[in-house]
């Protein structure tokens, strides 16, 4: 063999641990039948505990879990559209509305996919998680910073001056409440195998974007400052809050029960 051939890992069928490594870390002794029976009894016990609505939900195929969460996001938008639509729809540019709903909707669905990603698949690349989280924050802010869509309806001109803070906080609170069902459903659908901060943030981002989508079809105010504080900020607050909470919860759980919390 030439040295070039030997140096090529793709062609080298002898890639493996050296004798030194094999002797340093030999195979563990095979477990006894008694040990295996005891371990299986634990598994059986854990499987038996998988009962009830939550166990049913999280054992559904991942596509169905994602669909349920996506349908909830769509439902929030539809409910607002049917029951309390924005009063300035006839003045709002259709293309701009479609762009806002399409961009935030797409990001919400992708975030749901990342948050509900199953354990039998390799983890999503860190760059993808980071990109979705960043875009999920940037897109609502960018939309808010665009020039006002129109100035033709009196309701759209509210939320400025002395009216700014009460209106912005009202929308922030309303949107915050709207996102809660999304967070709760993703918690129920989560299989609990790994609760990384990134996955928690992705699921919560979907909730923040769902809130933005619902507010987009409900709130007629076009003032950029109102949109930034009352709407777009939810896309940052939700993932930040939830990621922080998940970190505290898992840290406390592992402190109580060791590095691995009970399922």
């Amino acid at each position, binding site marked *: 063999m030439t040295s070039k051939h030997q140096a090529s890992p*793709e062609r080298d069928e002898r*890639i493996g641990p050296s004798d030194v490594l*094999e002797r340093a870390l030999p195979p563990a002794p095979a477990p006894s039948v008694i040990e295996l029976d005891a371990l*299986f009894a634990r598994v059986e016990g854990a499987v038996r505990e998988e009962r009830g609505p939550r166990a049913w939900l999280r054992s559904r195929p991942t596509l169905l879990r994602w669909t349920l969460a996506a349908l909830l996001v769509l439902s929030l938008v539809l409910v607002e559209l049917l029951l309390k639509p924005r009063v300035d729809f006839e003045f709002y540019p259709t293309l701009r509305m479609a762009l806002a709903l399409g961009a935030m909707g797409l990001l919400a669905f992708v975030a749901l996919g990342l948050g509900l990603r199953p354990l*039998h698949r*390799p983890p999503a690349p860190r760059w993808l998680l980071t990109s979705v989280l960043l875009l999920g924050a940037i897109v609502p802010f960018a939309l808010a910073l665009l020039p006002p869509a129109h100035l033709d309806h009196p309701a759209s001109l509210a939320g400025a001056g002395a009216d700014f803070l009460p209106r912005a906080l009202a929308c922030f609170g309303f949107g915050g409440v709207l996102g809660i069902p999304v967070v709760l459903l993703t918690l129920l659908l989560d299989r609990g195998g*790994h609760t990384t901060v990134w996955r928690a943030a992705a699921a919560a981002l979907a909730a923040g974007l769902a809130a933005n989508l619902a507010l987009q079809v409900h709130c007629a105010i076009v003032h950029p400052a109102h949109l930034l504080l009352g709407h777009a900020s939810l896309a940052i607050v939700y993932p930040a809050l939830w990621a922080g909470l998940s970190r505290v919860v898992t840290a406390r759980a592992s402190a109580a029960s060791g590095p691995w919390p009970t399922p």
Partner: protein
Amino acid sequence: MDRASATDEQLMEAYVLGDQAALRELFGRYAPRLLGMLRRGLADDGAVQDLLQHTFLQLHRARGDYRIGARFRPWLFTIALNLKREHFRRLARRREDAQEEFDRHAAPGTPHDDLARSQTARLVRRALARLPDSQREVIELHWLAGLPFPEVAEAIGASLSAVKVRAHRGYAKLRDAVTAELGGNQDAVHAILEGASDGPGEPPG
């Protein structure tokens, strides 16, 4: 169905359809191998048993995702690997270096031979923990779990050539790191290992 002669895939399909005994058969086939992989990579046996339990619990929860005809083994080992990865992330969040986990669970007061073996094993585990994630996971699946490279590639979602490159680099780093830990003295390496050895290790599958 004769479970003893059924393939892993047939057993998993049976389990998806509600045959609870199929899980016992799968457990019997794979628990020893998973334990072997986990025990060679972790010194804390409590964590090893928890990870094993969680792996099969996750298998149960994810059974609705199992595609008929998909290879079972990489599916299972991907679950185990992801859980192990999360175990170390939790350790890191508790401000513990992964190598401290190894040190803390080393058995005290063992006879000299066992101590030497545990010291060299600890050296290798520490070196393994210091590898980049991408290389360490390939080596864990290839060496400790005995999966062939195509199944390693499937488990981690990379191409076969990328997996081989990572393995090649990882094994080289591991060898160098163990040698460096022992002060670069090859004679010392072999003397310690020959004194601690119980015989040749098993080649990777």
